[in-house]
């Protein structure tokens, strides 16, 4: 067992394929976080709504997204929607499912962030003659942003690693491509190690950028 001989030639040969696949992983991550965040902002507002329908829609979304397996969510989008004649490509199904999942988690993160700001901050800002919009933009939002920044960073990483589930429905993102290539070359150990390294580099890059940004932005 200890005298396994690594042979990296096949990995080097297919490195461009792995890098392309990593970019696909990155693309789904970025899109799913941006769209998920946009949805989460709306859901977080609805969550506080007096309207029972909006409240329950939000509560259901959050519960389904957070309390069911992400793989199952991908299946629902890929196979389930077929029942309504909606046939998504693997790419669209993974993007939709990860976005759905992100939106649920991000809604809760935003809700926590809003709750973290003392309501008397808003009153003080109104007392200075600021309009409600100015109060939100200049006083409340910056404080919410700080409170949610780290949890959102974690969510980005979770989303990036979660895209690997796309492999199951045949999407050739980094894990899918790696699985395909190792089956062609019979070098699974080398390929999965290489893929692991690429994931690690991507995640560490996100973490380092987030840390540098936080140090610059949150001096208070």
């Amino acid at each position, binding site marked *: 067992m200890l005298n396994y001989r690594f042979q990296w030639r096949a990995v080097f040969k297919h490195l461009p394929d792995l890098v392309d696949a990593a970019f696909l992983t990155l693309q789904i991550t970025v899109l799913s976080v941006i769209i998920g965040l946009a949805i989460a902002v709306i859901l977080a507002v609805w969550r506080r709504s007096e309207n029972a329908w909006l409240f329950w829609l939000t509560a259901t979304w959050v519960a389904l997204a957070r309390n069911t397996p992400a793989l199952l969510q991908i299946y629902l989008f890929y196979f389930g929607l077929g029942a309504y004649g909606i046939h998504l490509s693997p790419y669209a199904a993974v993007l939709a499912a990860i976005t759905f999942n992100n939106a649920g988690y991000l809604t809760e993160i935003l809700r926590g962030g809003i709750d973290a700001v*003392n309501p008397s901050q808003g*009153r*003080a800002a*109104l*007392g200075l003659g600021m309009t409600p919009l100015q109060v939100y933009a*200049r006083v409340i939002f*910056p404080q919410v942003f700080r409170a949610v920044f780290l949890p959102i960073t974690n969510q980005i990483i979770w989303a990036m690693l979660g895209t690997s589930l796309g492999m199951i429905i045949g999407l050739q993102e980094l894990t899918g491509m790696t699985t395909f290539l190792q089956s062609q070359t019979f070098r699974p150990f080398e390929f999965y190690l290489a893929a692991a390294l690429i994931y690690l580099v991507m995640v560490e890059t996100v973490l380092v950028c987030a840390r540098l940004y936080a140090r610059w932005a949150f001096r*208070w």
Partner: protein
Amino acid sequence: MIKIEEVRKSFGNLEVLKGIDLTVDKGEVVCLIGGSGSGKSTLLMCINALESIQSGRIEVDGIDVHAPSTDKNKLRRKLGIVFQQFNAFPHLTARENVALAPRHVLGLPKSETNQLAEHYLAHVGLGDKLDAYPTQLSGGQQQRLAIARALAMKPDYMLLDEVTSALDPELVGEVLDTLRLLAREGMTMIAVTHEIPFAREVADRVAFFHDGVIHEIGPARDLISSPQRTRTRDFLGKIL
């Protein structure tokens, strides 16, 4: 002039203000005293429309505060308010805290708002803390920052809601000194306070609130030294 007539205010079934009448002239300092829940803080919130009223009328320089047509944001520029919790904006430096409203509410250029901020921070004794964030300031300093921030809007009136109540005892003095300074400069102030000696020294008139009404009102020295009504006497006896 602030004119309060027959103001009633309820939270749900609880009537907090049961018909308040009070007129405060320009340059006057009026302190509101009384037990907690007697309605004095609520009245301050009603004066600058942070709270609505059920009936009655509040006028600030002839403007009906609670008329639907009144631009409340514009009205609040006349009325500086400082709260018990300091409410310094934690993401902004002292200078930025003070410059924020003049910059975005009055639309003054940045050079001018910075000068304004430096002037008012120096005025409350924080001239050496311009670039400090609130977390780097003591409670007393944060409260003086809140006062400077309100002053920078050049308000005609200051509403002070128990501004020393959340402070450690050794920090109360510096904030009261700042208020004395304002009083000397002729600022019109309505201050909810539990600092009876301060009220006696600085206020022109003192109003004793009890159970949602002004139970007794009079010149500060008279009311505090020789209250006419039993409840006022009881309250002052307990607190002094």
